[in-house]
């Protein structure tokens, strides 16, 4: 058996695959954050709570309306995205032009309120959600047996990341969005409704978080704290990738998942810390992040 640093190669392949799957979540969530930060200049601390709402809406759709997983993949992001639009209209918009810190505090407060309300309603131990029957069962990759559902998660996340990136970088809509970030008054002068664009962008970023929530519901415990556990790592991903860089957050998300996966083999106790070690090193060498532009 081929060994690398005392671990069988086959085990490492397995761990790399799992790391890639976790990376898919980091990428999806940090992508939403990057979109929101890039266009709104808001550090969206409510992202984890909105991710959690996505999972709970998925559960609620099945529990109360009998709507299954596949429909939830579309409906849940729309519902939570609409909630995001309301949030932006009512609260976040009012902080436009102020220091980042205000947006951060506001969204952090929103996250606490949302999580508190959900805890009050559903308790902290969570609700059950099963894997859809079409995605049950194993997928034999030769070096490991991967649950079909995890394979689906990677594919779905990668496709959504790619589509989002193409939308922003290659389409006319994306060009308008990017232009509005650079110089909002000028774009407005061309007849574009910039405030509405910003609101919808926030909704879309939130929708991405909710989509990740739907993907997570069958794998993880659906409970009100599920987002707050993830959000810190996701922020580190965004910082490492370069604040606001779409491509950066996608690549970094997948990359960090793999680094974390390898740490879980060699030194599991450090697997929560390794992301921040990477962050420190990156910030020392490239303060703007791997893909960021220096201010």
């Amino acid at each position, binding site marked *: 058996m081929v060994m690398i640093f005392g671990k069988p190669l086959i085990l490492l392949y397995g761990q790399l695959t799992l790391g890639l799957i976790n990376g898919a979540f980091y990428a999806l969530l940090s992508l939403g954050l990057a979109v929101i930060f890039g266009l709104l200049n808001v550090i969206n601390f409510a992202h984890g709570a909105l991710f959690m709402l996505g999972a709970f809406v998925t559960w609620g759709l099945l529990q109360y309306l009998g709507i299954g997983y596949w429909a939830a993949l579309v409906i849940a992001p729309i519902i939570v995205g609409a909630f995001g639009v309301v949030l932006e209209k009512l609260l976040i918009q009012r902080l436009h032009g102020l220091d980042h810190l205000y947006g951060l505090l506001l969204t952090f407060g929103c996250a606490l309120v949302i999580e508190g309300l959900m805890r009050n309603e559903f308790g902290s131990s969570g609700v059950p959600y*099963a894997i859809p029957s079409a995605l049950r069962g194993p997928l034999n990759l030769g070096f490991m047996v991967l649950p079909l559902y*995890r394979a689906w998660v990677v594919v779905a996340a990668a496709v959504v990341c790619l589509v989002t990136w193409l939308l922003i970088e290659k389409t006319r809509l994306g060009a308008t969005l990017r232009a509005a970030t650079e110089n909002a008054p000028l774009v407005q002068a061309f007849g574009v409704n910039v405030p509405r664009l910003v609101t919808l962008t926030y909704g879309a970023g939130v929708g991405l978080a909710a989509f990740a929530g739907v993907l997570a519901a069958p794998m*993880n415990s659906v409970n009100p704290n599920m987002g707050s*556990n993830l959000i810190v790592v996701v922020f580190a991903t965004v910082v490492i990738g370069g604040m606001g860089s779409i491509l950066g957050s996608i690549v970094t998300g997948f990359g960090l998942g793999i680094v974390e996966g390898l740490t879980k083999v060699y030194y599991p106790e450090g697997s*929560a810390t390794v992301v921040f070690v990477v962050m420190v090193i990156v910030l020392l060498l490239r303060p703007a992040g791997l893909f960021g532009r220096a201010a």
Partner: protein
Amino acid sequence: MQLSRRLLLGTAAATAALPVRRVRAQDKTTIKIGVLNDQSGPYRDTGGRSSYYCAQQAVAEFQAQGFSVDVIIADHQNKPDIGAGIARQWYDRDGVDVILDVPTSSVALAIAGVAREKDKAYLNIGAATADLTGKQCAPCIVHWSYDTYMLAKSTGGATVRSGGDSWYFITADYAFGHQLQEQTTRFVTAAGGKVLGSSAYPFPGTTDFSSFLLQAQASGAKVLGLCNAGADTVNSIKQAKEFGLQARIAAMLMFITDVHALGLDVAQGLTLTESFYWDLNDRTRAFTERVKPRTPNNWPNMIHAGCYASTLHYLKAVTQIGVANAKQSGAAVVAAMKAMPTDDDAFGKGRIREDGMAMFPSYLFQVKTPAESKGPWDFYKQVSSYGPDEAWRPLAEGGCAFIKT
């Protein structure tokens, strides 16, 4: 500053009000019970408000003669410094006579120190650490419902006897997880089993356990021992099922609330240990019917039942030695609690040992299949049980200092 008549009158009134409040706080005929637990974090459902309701239920049933009883509640947020701060304030300033529940071993041990120092009664139900009746024991402490030793002996021993003789542990990397793993290892090896490996994961903050599950699978162990609690246990089990793990899962600490969160589809077949189950006998069913209206979505587990039973027994002891004595010395009330036998609907008849351990049977349950379950929360079937004298760590092994003197 201009001294107006209004200000003067106001100040006088305020000064007059102060001593009155102090007298009320140290009311000679009111016993004050403080329920201190997690109300916003991962252990909210295993303790939380339901513990408070169960304590109130005990007060309502007891109908104290000659004194009144007040139950208050606070959130320790699973932080030892916050918990110890509230405990000091309660004992010193707010006239609290007994602190109840206190899950999370680190917080529980911090409060044990405060209670010992101030000679105040401390009934711990929610924490797992066996040190409360061992190295950290005190004459004013009672530990009810469960501890790491009892869980390890019941689940660990039974699993090895039924063929699960090689283990892999997934362990939360803090005091509780390591203590549980160490004690389970002792029972596994004593019964002829062996431990093939373990992974300690960072707590809190881990949601994906697949990597550890893969390592467990690679080890070839027949049993996966989960030395964690709450959402971590739920996540581990959910993902173990997803990966089609061949090994049997022994959830070393799991409550009926966690089974409810998992759903029977995923949880069926698991074995776990509790000292209370609502459907155990007529008395437990009667107790559950009484508290259910207050906590309809969170039926009582062994922690909630322990809060009820220990409050009831405490009030009996207070009646026996008198309110004045009870308020003066926690050790005196606890001594009275140890001197008389316990009897309540949740645990039946029992006793409290010299070191503070409440002695009841422990039950090994298996989670029912969806087909076997006949109604809401109908989750367990009993596999085996240990009598009160076998379930707990022998007195001599605990190393409780005040027993020798």
